[in-house]
């Protein structure tokens, strides 16, 4: 007999926050893809990836410091130190996947590559079911809506790919397809560490800080190994100076989207969270069509394919958003969480608090002493100040890429992103205090 884990009203609230964060993640992750267009301007794919990761690193150490303070991270490490390994592992997976996507974009174009790596949502459902009890005891209807929704999104993504591939003929189709599919597998598997961390009770803002260590370490290793050594890397970075800011800004935008994705993975699981954040393809398409003027002058049938594909993706996302987690399924999540807690001897109240979105560090520490509540220190302010200074300096050095942009569309999309940012942040603060 499985007992209900948390009261149903609280569960509903957490799910609504998770769904909102999933859609918010889609908007921000979709916008972060825009800087990869600079690959065509002669910057090496490895340098593009490395610079994005540097932006990600800066954002991931400064945003958590701003929101919660680094002292909270220390408390999380004390409770579940083993999760540092999974944080680093997830970061390595992300770095390799991101590099693969840049090779895929170069070889087959963004429009074909994007839906191919979005198979990660199907893999996420598989791992969620197999390893973390997701969709167990969920009932046939919820299975059908989640799996059917993910398949609808995949079909929509494929339609979009066919429509937009008219503008980007493949140069190395096999190599590009393999790169895009591999990126999808790596990203789909990256959610295994995410889910493990959140079932154990770790705060997403702490986990992503460890994640960056693996991410930056792996990316630097790849850039040095494949870029011809330190001297060649320094030379390439020097050449990329004019676009440094734009790529690092892409990384920064990506972090905001990924932070929402982490909260979605935490509160609605990876089987629902990943497909919702994969709505980033729709946003990427909107940026491409409205801001960068892609797909201009195509036939009516191609526009019909774009609209049809977008509607399919939206319908799939809607179906998944409506497939709420039942009390029975949540109890199975709790079983998986308890298993994690027992295996690694994590304080049960820490695990429980994490699952219900309350402050996990209000629970007692493993030695039985009440955990202190650290406030922000000079280190937090220093991190925020350093990141801001670097971005402002790079912005002053940056040159605007020579591209025709539709500014009204850009402002409208940016406004939509900020609406999501505020809505998600307020919902997270009110319901979980960013826990």
């Amino acid at each position, binding site marked *: 007999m499985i007992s209900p884990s948390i009261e149903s009203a609280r569960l509903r609230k957490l799910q609504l926050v998770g769904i909102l964060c999933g859609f918010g993640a889609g908007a921000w992750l979709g916008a972060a893809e825009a800087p990869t267009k600079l690959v065509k301007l002669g910057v090496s794919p490895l340098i593009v990836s490395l610079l994005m990761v540097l932006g990600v690193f800066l954002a991931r150490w400064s945003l958590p410091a701003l929101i919660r303070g680094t002292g909270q991270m220390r408390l999380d490490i004390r409770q579940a130190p*083993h999760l540092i390994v999974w944080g680093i592992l997830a970061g390595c997976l992300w770095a*390799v996947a991101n*590099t693969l996507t840049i090779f895929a974009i170069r070889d087959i174009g963004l429009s074909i590559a994007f839906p191919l790596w979005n198979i990660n949502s199907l893999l996420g459902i598989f791992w969620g079911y197999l390893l973390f009890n997701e969709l167990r005891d969920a009932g046939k209807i919820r299975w059908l809506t989640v799996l059917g929704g993910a398949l609808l999104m995949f079909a929509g993504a494929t339609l979009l790919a066919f429509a937009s591939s008219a503008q980007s003929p493949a140069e190395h189709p096999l190599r590009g397809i393999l*790169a895009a599919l591999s990126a999808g597998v790596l990203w789909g598997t990256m959610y295994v*560490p995410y889910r493990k961390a959140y079932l154990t009770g770790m705060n997403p803002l702490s986990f992503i800080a460890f994640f960056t260590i693996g991410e930056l370490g792996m990316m630097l290793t790849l850039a040095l190994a494949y870029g011809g050594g330190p001297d060649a890397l320094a030379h390439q970075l020097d050449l990329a100076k004019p676009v440094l800011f734009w790529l690092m800004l892409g990384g920064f935008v990506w972090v905001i989207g990924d932070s929402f994705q982490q909260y979605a993975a935490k509160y609605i699981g990876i089987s629902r969270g990943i497909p919702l954040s994969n709505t980033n393809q729709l946003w990427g398409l909107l940026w491409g069509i409205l801001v960068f003027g892609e797909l201009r002058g195509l036939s009516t049938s191609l526009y019909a394919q774009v609209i049809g594909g977008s509607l399919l993706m939206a319908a799939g996302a809607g179906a998944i958003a409506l497939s709420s987690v039942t009390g029975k399924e949540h109890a199975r999540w709790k079983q998986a969480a308890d298993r994690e807690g027992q295996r*690694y001897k994590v304080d049960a109240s820490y695990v429980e608090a994490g699952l219900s979105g309350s402050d996990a560090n209000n629970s007692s520490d*493993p*030695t039985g002493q009440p955990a202190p509540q650290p406030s922000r220190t000079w280190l937090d302010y220093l991190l925020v100040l350093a990141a801001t200074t670097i971005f402002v300096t790079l912005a002053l050095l940056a040159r605007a890429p020579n591209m025709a942009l539709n500014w009204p569309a850009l402002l409208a999309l940016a406004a939509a992103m900020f609406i999501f940012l505020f809505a998600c942040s307020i919902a997270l603060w009110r319901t979980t205090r960013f826990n």
Partner: protein
Amino acid sequence: MAEEKAAPKSAGVWTMIFTDVHFWVPAIVLLAGLVVLHWIR
């Protein structure tokens, strides 16, 4: 008491990690990804 409790926990944690399927699934996928990247670059 607290130190006695913490010691075996830290000693055994690596064994726990290396016998955890949640570690090996992403680790193997990562290695496979590196092989693909090496091949296509």
